[in-house]
């Protein structure tokens, strides 16, 4: 919109208006004129420095492009966890989504089935309880589940750190959940925590064996072995034999052996290429 009016805003008033130092009366007058006058619009353009606009654009772009930290990242940040650690943990949740859903379904079933049928729940509970953290750990890292594995492996961020952090996250979320579920299942109370020892052994085996094999392969093998053991114990009449007596010594041996082997595989001059 332009006007052929002979009067135009003088330079001083225009500059004052652009700088924001013109009084209210002058500002209104200048604004109303500039809105209709192409020549004065051009004059304004020469007075406004481009840098603030470029800065505003860059700032807007920064807000739009930078991904908003997830709820997990923000929560971890509040506890002083570094950006790198928080992002590594957050990226794992995408990998673990199926595990989380499966966990809820399986635990729900472990509680509901014995309550509905009126039978003891220890067999079903023992079958699934140790496998939940094992599955969670096995599905949180490694080339089979993480499509970005190779790129992440060759970044300076230590793969070992990634593995241990994700394992800690899986255990800290799954262990309380399974224990609480166990307290709801109709069975001797100690079973709600007795599964922890075999679970610890299995997780240690997954971590150690992942220095040779893919973790989900190890997890699958352990799961099949455990289910077979539970079925065998149930056929013998007493599933609790898996968490009492000599079985305890077996789990302790497995745990200690795996832990030592893990330490050997990740430290020293030539650590495992899959974990370091």
């Amino acid at each position, binding site marked *: 919109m332009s006007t052929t009016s002979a009067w135009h805003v003088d330079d001083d008033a225009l500059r004052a208006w652009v700088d924001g130092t013109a009084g209210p009366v002058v500002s209104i007058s200048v604004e109303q004129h500039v809105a209709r006058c192409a020549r004065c619009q051009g004059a304004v353009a020469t007075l406004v420095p481009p840098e603030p606009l470029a800065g505003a654009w860059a700032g807007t772009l920064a807000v739009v*492009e*930078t*991904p908003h930290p997830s709820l997990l990242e923000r929560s971890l940040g509040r506890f002083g966890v570094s*950006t790198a650690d928080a*992002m590594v943990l957050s990226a794992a949740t995408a990998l673990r989504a199926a595990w989380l859903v499966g966990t809820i379904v399986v635990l729900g079933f472990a509680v509901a089935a014995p309550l509905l049928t009126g039978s003891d729940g220890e067999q079903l509970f023992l079958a699934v309880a140790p496998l939940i953290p094992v599955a969670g750990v096995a599905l949180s890292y490694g080339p089979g589940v993480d499509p970005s594995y190779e*790129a992440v492996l060759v970044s*300076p961020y230590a793969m070992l750190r990634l593995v241990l952090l994700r394992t800690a996250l899986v255990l800290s979320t799954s262990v309380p959940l399974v224990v609480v579920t166990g307290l709801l299942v109709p069975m001797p109370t100690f079973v709600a925590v007795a599964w922890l020892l075999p679970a610890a052994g299995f997780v240690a085996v997954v971590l150690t064996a992942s220095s040779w094999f893919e973790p989900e392969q190890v997890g699958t093998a352990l799961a099949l072995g455990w289910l077979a053991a539970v079925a065998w114990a149930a056929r013998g009449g007493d599933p609790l034999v898996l968490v009492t007596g000599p079985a305890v010594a077996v789990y302790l041996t497995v745990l200690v052996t795996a832990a030592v082997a893990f330490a050997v595989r990740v430290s*020293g001059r*030539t650590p495992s290429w899959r974990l370091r």
Partner: protein
Amino acid sequence: MTAPTVVLRGAGKSYRGTTALADVDLELHRGVVGLLGPNGAGKTTLLRILATVLGADTGSVRILGRDPAEGADRTAIRRRLGYLPQELGYPGGFTAYGFVNYMAVLKEWDDADARRAEVRRVLEHVSLDGKATKRIRALSGGQRRRVGLAQALLGPPELLVLDEPTTGLDPEQRVSLRRVLAEAGRDSTVVVATHQTEDVAALCERVVVIDDGRIRFDGAVREMVARAVGRVWLSHSPDPQALTSWRTGTGRYRNLGTAPAGAEPAEPSLEDAYLLLRGAPHDEGVAA
């Protein structure tokens, strides 16, 4: 002459009884090197060794002056390395910017402003700055590959290892990529494994041909092409004496091998030289 970026002496690697690499001697300096070879030749294994994904079973490997078999040295190498694996996927939910930002964090770009500038720089380099906020799963195959290339360019790295970077790229994008790599090759060592001989011809002064885990040729591209002079000819129908022949766009046949007397010669391309090298018996393989 500056120290070489990479030195391999007698390097070998086997998987479950199969020899993927045998007795590889290789020295790399600044510039762009093309790695040519058929599937299963050992290209990816060699690149994985350079990228510190794997260790060699035999021989010695030195990358950026360090021994990747030692834990602390491996991390030091990785700080100066960029790698695009042959297959790179992205955990769900990432945008293009988000994934490159994630990799930048893992590569120790701790300062948020500097990291932002670096992520924008590499996304602009691969012409993805306009798609930075798109979810990766909504991008095309070629665009996804460029996200992977962008994260490899963070640094910029002194050693850039790219396994089939042109997969899924259309011809214009390939030309654009050649520009990016040529620029990178001025200050860094760039190793590109590819099937595309025309990319090697356009981009590399040096080519390494690998087959069956062994190096069959290591030298200048023009030298490899020169070996094919006199061994490429045209005819109206496929010549039974040729090692191989195929119909060209003009309707005539291009033949490779020992040319019969009076045959109409054709100027050899790198592809011709590569096919002739592969067709030759294995004991003819020579390092220049």
